[in-house]
């Protein structure tokens, strides 16, 4: 399942959604807001989304991952709204019988989410300027 959240992401709650007795392992990825980008000092950022299509595209990615990889469960949650440095922006979790498929599916979901889901990042810099980030693949 793919979800959007305007509140802090709770990894424990999300991990519970991919826990599966068939699985021999679990892989997760956390994306955090870092304090720099492209030689600029980042103070904060804001994620904007077209929520209806973001959920549609994000869930299509999860379905594609479940078909393409030998995994048992997959979840992705992306923050929207205002975030500070250190906040978690995205969480991806996959459980599978074996680790190879879990690692591959986790990376697939992350890459496809960054490339396809209609979410846009607006960075706020230490000099007061702001800037839209694009195609940060």
């Amino acid at each position, binding site marked *: 399942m793919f979800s959007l959240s305007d509140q802090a992401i709770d990894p424990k709650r999300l991990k519970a959604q991919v826990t599966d007795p068939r699985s021999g392992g679990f892989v997760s990825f956390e994306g955090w807001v870092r304090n720099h980008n492209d030689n600029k000092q980042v103070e904060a950022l804001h994620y904007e989304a077209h929520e*209806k299509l973001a959920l549609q595209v994000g869930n299509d990615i999860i379905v594609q991952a479940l078909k393409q990889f030998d995994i048992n469960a997959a979840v992705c949650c992306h923050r929207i709204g205002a975030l500070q440095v250190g906040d978690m*922006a995205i969480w991806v979790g996959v459980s599978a019988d074996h680790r190879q498929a879990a690692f591959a599916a986790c990376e697939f979901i992350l890459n496809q989410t960054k490339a396809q889901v209609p*979410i*846009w990042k607006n960075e706020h810099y230490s000099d007061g300027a702001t800037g*839209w980030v*694009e195609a*940060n693949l």
Partner: protein
Amino acid sequence: MTIKIEFYGRLKEDFNATSTEWTFQPDTTVEALYQSLCDTHQVTANIHVVRPIINDTFVDWQQHIAPHDVVGFFPPASGG
């Protein structure tokens, strides 16, 4: 005939608006609409990276717009 146009991400700054009303001629494609907007706002039209939607559905650039449609334009995604 009028429609509502919505801009997302950096396109809000390019077109200096979050949304706007627009009057159009019959048989106008979404590509012609976008080109007209770009001409008016002196924005470079790059339809290879921008994606159009109509009424919350992805559409082809050759899709014709209809009265009361809500047309949106997406710049490249940058989540994660």
